[in-house]
Structures are given as structure tokens and as C-alpha cells.
């Protein structure tokens, strides 16, 4: 019971922080948090199909995009005074679009399972992606469509703050609905279908109907996420349907941990923030994102959420003292390896860039020193290359030590918690 209360307290504290956040942050960061919340909702709704029902969809960007386009069309209608529709209820258009298309496409896709299901969803999304630029009346061609937010209910939606609270309300409401859904008999059935569909069918359930419905609920909330994006950006174009967008949500969900409820949202928020920060700093940020994903797939198959939930379930608070030292060593190892890789990648990037080529030509083709992290490095000097080399070798040498320490610390911590 106390763990339940603690969870509730944590959630309330988190909600409180989200409520006061826009008063503390710069407009740029408020916008970043809006995007993080939208990505979180997208990942949560995706993982209802993936994590709960085991349906790996490679085309969820279709419903994200349809939600966005439906909302934009409604916004345009409001702008031209064809209908009166309050801005805070605009995401309902996205939800409707997501639900209807999810029912139709889901009915088709859920006839297949596993890889074949993934291929059907991929084909549907690619169809939309290739059709959208030619279907100008609906998707606005290559330029897409854009419109303006209207103020309503005497709330000012011209500012980011108004959009922030609108997004927050919808994301929290949708997340609660998604969570509540997992507690319903239907939500339990989703787990059963994932684990053994044959058996569920033998028990007399209509599994195709159930999967269609679960898929449609997932796409409905994906539509809401797309609608929120449309409201925040006031524009979109056909690239929202791209395989890249579908891929992103898959990456984020698995980094966050597809087996837990809040893991995907956490992963999406972290990766969206990561993308926002690193894309300003380096052009290789997609490489780092790919590396993070592969490392998570190889070594942390349950994702960040899985890691957290293992600690929360197995350990008492008092047992964490056994893990402080091992985790510090792990952190050092991680930073050493990361430093070596980042230094190498950024050096290669600078040395092969056009600006450096111009610099070389100005100096008669000689390999002149380059600037990185505010320091000068010479590309041919052994000192330059010894930095990443030593860093990576030290990290690699300490890696077995860190693993052994962690294993021992973990055994002791679990032992104390069980006693």
C-alpha cells in the first residue's frame, strides 16, 4: 500500500513541476517541453499496440500525420468561419481521424502477425507518403498546409504558454486514458493476445476484432498527438508520413523500454530533448542516436524503463548503498568511452568539412591545426590521437572491473532487500 502511495505522490509531484514549468523556462525551452510531451504521447499510444498487444507497427506515422492534417483542415474551416469550434477541443478532430483510419487500416493489418503485420503497416504508411504530395486538395502538395490558431474561451493561444497548457491537459488526459485502458478486461486481453493468441482464440474470444479495436485505440491517441503537433506548429506537410517518423517512435519506445507503461514516454521525452540539444551542437547527432539505440538493444534489452522498474521492484531504499560505488565506476567507464568516441567523430567531422578544406588550400595544402571544443589540435600529431585512444583503452580496460563490481553489488543489494 505504501508503494502505491509513494507512486501517487511521485506522479503528483511530477504533475506539479509540469504545471509551473512554463513560468520558469525561456520560450525556446517551453517549446522544447511541448515537443517532448507530444513525442511522449505518441510513444505511449504506439506502445499500446507494441508493448501491450505485441503488434510491431512500422507505419504509425500515418495516423500521426492524418491526425495533424485533420486538425489543420478543421482549423482552416474555423479561420474561414465555416464552423465554430473552440481551439481546446481541436484534438478531437485528430482523435476521430486516427480512430476511423485505425479501424479501417487495423482491420486489414491485424489479419497478419509478426513481420507480416509490420510489413502491412509499412506499406500503408508508404502509400500515404507517396500519394500525399500528389493529392493537393487534401494534403496541400509538397508545400503542405498551414493556418492560424484562434483564441477561444478567453485563453490566449498566440503565446507558447497557452499552447503549453493545452498540450499538457491533453497529454495528461490521454495518458490517463491509456493507463486506465490497460486495467480494463479489454486491456488484459491485449496482453493475453500478445503472449498466446491461439489460446485466446480457443477460449472463445474474437482475436481479430480485439486486435483491430486495440490498434484503433492506439491510433486514436496517435491522432491526438498529431493534432497537438499541428496546433503547436500551425502547419505540416507530407514529410510527416515519412518512414523516418515511424522509425523515430520505434527507436524511442525501445530505448525507453517497451515492456513498461511509462518507459516509452520517458524514452521519447529524453530522445526528443537529446535531439534538440545535440542537433544544435553537432551535425552527427543522428549517429549518436543510432549508437544509443544499438547499445540499448545489445546490452539493455528492456530499455531505461525496464532498468528503473527492476530497481524499484527488487530493491529497498536502504540497499542502494551497495550500488553507489559500482554505479560510479560504471559512470566513469561510460564517460571515458563516450569521450573517446565523441572526440574521434567530431575530429573526423571537422577535418573532412568544407571549411577545413578551404583552410588547407589557403595554407598550400598543409594539414593545419583544427579547432575543437575551444582548443587547437594538430591532425598529424600523435598527441591528438592519443586522447581518444587512451580514453577508449582505459574505458575498455575498466569495463570488466565495472561489470564485476556491479554484479557483486547487485547480489548484495538484492540479498539485503529480500532479507
Amino acid at each position, binding site marked *: 500500500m505504501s508503494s502505491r502511495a509513494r507512486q501517487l505522490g511521485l506522479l503528483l509531484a511530477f504533475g506539479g513541476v509540469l504545471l509551473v514549468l512554463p513560468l520558469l523556462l525561456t520560450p525556446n525551452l517551453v517549446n522544447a517541453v511541448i515537443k517532448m510531451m507530444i513525442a511522449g504521447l505518441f510513444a505511449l499510444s504506439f506502445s499500446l499496440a507494441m508493448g501491450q498487444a505485441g503488434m510491431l507497427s512500422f507505419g504509425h506515422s500515418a495516423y500521426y500525420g492524418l491526425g495533424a492534417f485533420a486538425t489543420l483542415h478543421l482549423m482552416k474551416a474555423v479561420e474561414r468561419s465555416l464552423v465554430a469550434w473552440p481551439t481546446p477541443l481541436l484534438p478531437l478532430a485528430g482523435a476521430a481521424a486516427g480512430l476511423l483510419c485505425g479501424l479501417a487500416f487495423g482491420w486489414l493489418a491485424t489479419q497478419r502477425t509478426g*513481420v507480416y503485420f509490420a510489413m502491412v503497416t509499412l506499406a500503408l504508411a508508404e*502509400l500515404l507518403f507517396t500519394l500525399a504530395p500528389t493529392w493537393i486538395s487534401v494534403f496541400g502538395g509538397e508545400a503542405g498546409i498551414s493556418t492560424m490558431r484562434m483564441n477561444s474561451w478567453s485563453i490566449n493561444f498566440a503565446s507558447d504558454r497557452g499552447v503549453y497548457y493545452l498540450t499538457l491537459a491533453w497529454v495528461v488526459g490521454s495518458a490517463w486514458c491509456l493507463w486506465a485502458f490497460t486495467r480494463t478486461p479489454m486491456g488484459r486481453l491485449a496482453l493475453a493476445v500478445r503472449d498466446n493468441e491461439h489460446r485466446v482464440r480457443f477460449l472463445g474470444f474474437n482475436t481479430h476484432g480485439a486486435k483491430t479495436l486495440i490498434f484503433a485505440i492506439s491510433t486514436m491517441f496517435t491522432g491526438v498527438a498529431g493534432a497537438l503537433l499541428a496546433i503547436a506548429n500551425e502547419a505540416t506537410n507530407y514529410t510527416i508520413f515519412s518512414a523516418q517518423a515511424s522509425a523515430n517512435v*520505434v*527507436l524511442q519506445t525501445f530505448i525507453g523500454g517497451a515492456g513498461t507503461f511509462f518507459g516509452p514516454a520517458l524514452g521519447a521525452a529524453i530522445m526528443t530533448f537529446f535531439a534538440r540539444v545535440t542537433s544544435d551542437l553537432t551535425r552527427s547527432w543522428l*549517429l549518436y542516436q543510432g549508437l544509443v539505440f544499438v547499445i540499448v538493444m545489445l546490452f539493455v534489452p528492456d530499455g531505461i524503463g525496464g532498468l528503473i522498474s527492476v530497481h524499484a521492484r527488487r530493491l529497498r531504499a536502504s540497499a542502494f548503498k551497495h550500488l553507489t560505488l559500482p554505479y560510479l565506476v560504471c559512470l566513469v567507464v561510460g564517460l571515458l568511452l563516450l569521450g573517446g568516441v565523441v572526440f574521434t567523430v567530431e575530429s573526423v567531422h571537422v577535418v573532412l568539412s568544407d571549411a577545413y578544406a578551404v583552410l588547407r588550400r589557403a595554407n598550400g595544402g598543409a594539414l593545419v591545426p583544427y579547432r575543437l571544443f575551444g582548443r587547437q589540435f594538430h591532425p598529424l600529431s600523435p598527441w591528438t590521437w592519443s586522447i581518444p585512444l587512451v580514453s577508449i583503452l582505459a574505458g575498455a580496460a575498466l569495463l570488466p572491473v565495472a561489470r564485476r563490481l556491479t554484479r557483486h553489488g547487485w547480489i548484495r543489494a538484492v540479498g539485503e532487500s529480500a532479507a
Partner: protein
Amino acid sequence: MEFLIVSVLNGVVHGLLLFMVSAGLTLIFGMMGVLNFAHAWFYMLGAYVGFTLTRTVGFWAGLIAAPLIVGGCGALIERYMLRRVHKYGHTHELLLTFGLAFIIEELIKLFYGDFPVNYAMPAYMKFAAFTLYETNYPFYRLFMGIVALAIFAALYVLLTRTRVGIIVRAATLRPVMVEALGHNLPVVFMGVFAGGAALAGLAGAVAGAFFPTGPNMAVDFGTLVFVVVVVGGLGSLEGALVASLMIGLFISFSVGLSWSLSDLLALVGLGSWAREVGGLLTLQLSTVAASMPFLLMLLVLLIRPAGLFGDRQ
């Protein structure tokens, strides 16, 4: 008539090229059950290896080294990555290759920049094989077709007529029995994965010299390759060949035709109605050519998921 012959020729060559890439993908899926998302990225890797070696050593060296290097990468990926996550199931393997595709693309962008590179065939291969209605037909297109056909023949003989082929095919059906007979199963799987990757690498080195070699070539090709293996039947080599040719021909014809649904409806007297409705009904085939392969894939998946030649769901 000219349009017909040129379209058929181009379609067949494009189809054969598609086959070179999809052959490896369908083999890997058939043997290991792994849908290798990174396959088209191996193709791109092959093109860039070919480009690098053409500049330093020579075109033919690149053609020989590209499959070896890409195959080596494939072997390492299978040995140190895929085998690790095998116990978590096929979804995990699929996702891992998906992440690898990301990394390969970004590494190539890191070293070669965001724009296409100037990878060209040697000057002595730039001649017209024959002249057709005053259009010169490039010899290199025929060369690509011949390489692809040679690969198909070699693969077919290897799989059906040799001892290695028997072991590989047996490992697909009865892995435990093959292992009990003393064959090293992990090595067989590694070999299949490396072989598939090498094929994609060779295709990249051959095709990259004719088509643009840039960081977008994998994305453009990637989904099309999936279409081919799904339509042909996942795991079937003959299916992949037939589906590649079909899709190659389809693309080369649809680019030049301006048919639309309203023309079709006009045959039953609904033409003017369809033109009034507009929208999807008046879109011309040439503008929606890019969507057609996905429509085909969707229909195959829904009606006959085993594909044209596949024999399992």
C-alpha cells in the same frame, strides 16, 4: 514501339538490379528468420567502397573488394551483434539491424558528406552497345544485367547442386538435426548472413557507377527491396527474381504512361463523372508510379501472404 522496347529493356535491367539486392535479403530471411532492415544500407556501403577503391586502386579492384569488405562487415555484425540478441526473439533482431542501418548511413555521411559523390565507370566502358531508333543504348546497362544473371545462376547452382547448398538448405528445415550430424550451425548462419551482405555490396559497387551514389540511395531502395521479397515470397530465390522483374518493368512503364482511373471508368461510360469528381480519380499513373509497388505489396500481403513463390506464412 520505341517506347515499348526501351521500356522493356530498362525495366528488365532495373529489375535484375533489384534482384541482386533482394536475393541476399530473401536468403537471410529464409534461412535465419531475420528480416534484415539494414540490407539496402549494405548496398550503399558497397557503392561507397567501390567509389573509394576506384579512385585509389581501380574500378575492377573495387568490384572485387566491395563484396568482400561488405561481406566481412556482415559476418562481424552477425557474430558479435545478432547472435547476442537472438535469445530475445526476431523482433529484437529486426530492431537491431534497423539501428545499424542508421549508423551505417550516418557514418557514410560523416566521411563522404551529405551530397552524392562522383562514382563513375571507367571510360572504356562508356560506349553504346547498340543503337535503337537513334537512341544509343549504353553498354553498362547490359553489363549490370549480365552480372545479375550470373549471380542468379551461381546462387542457384550453389544452393541446389553442391554440398554446401545441401547443408544450408537442411539447416533451414532441421537445424537441430544438422547440428547433430556434426555441422557447425553458427558458422553456417554467419556464412549466410555474410553472403547476403556480400551480394548487396557487389550490387552497390556495380550499380553505383551508373546510378547516383549518395547518402539517399539506401532509403530510396530500401522499401522497394522489401516490396520485392514480400511479393516474391519471403525466402524464395525464384520468387525474388520474378518479382524484381515485374516491379522493374512496372516502374519503367508507369513513368511514361498518363493513364488515370477516370480513363478506366470512361470504358464503362463513367469518364465525365470521374473527371468531375477529380481527386484520386484523375491522378495520372506517371505521378503515382511511386505508390504502385506499395499497393502491390499490400495486396499480396492481404491476399496471399506467402507471396508468389513462398511456401510458408
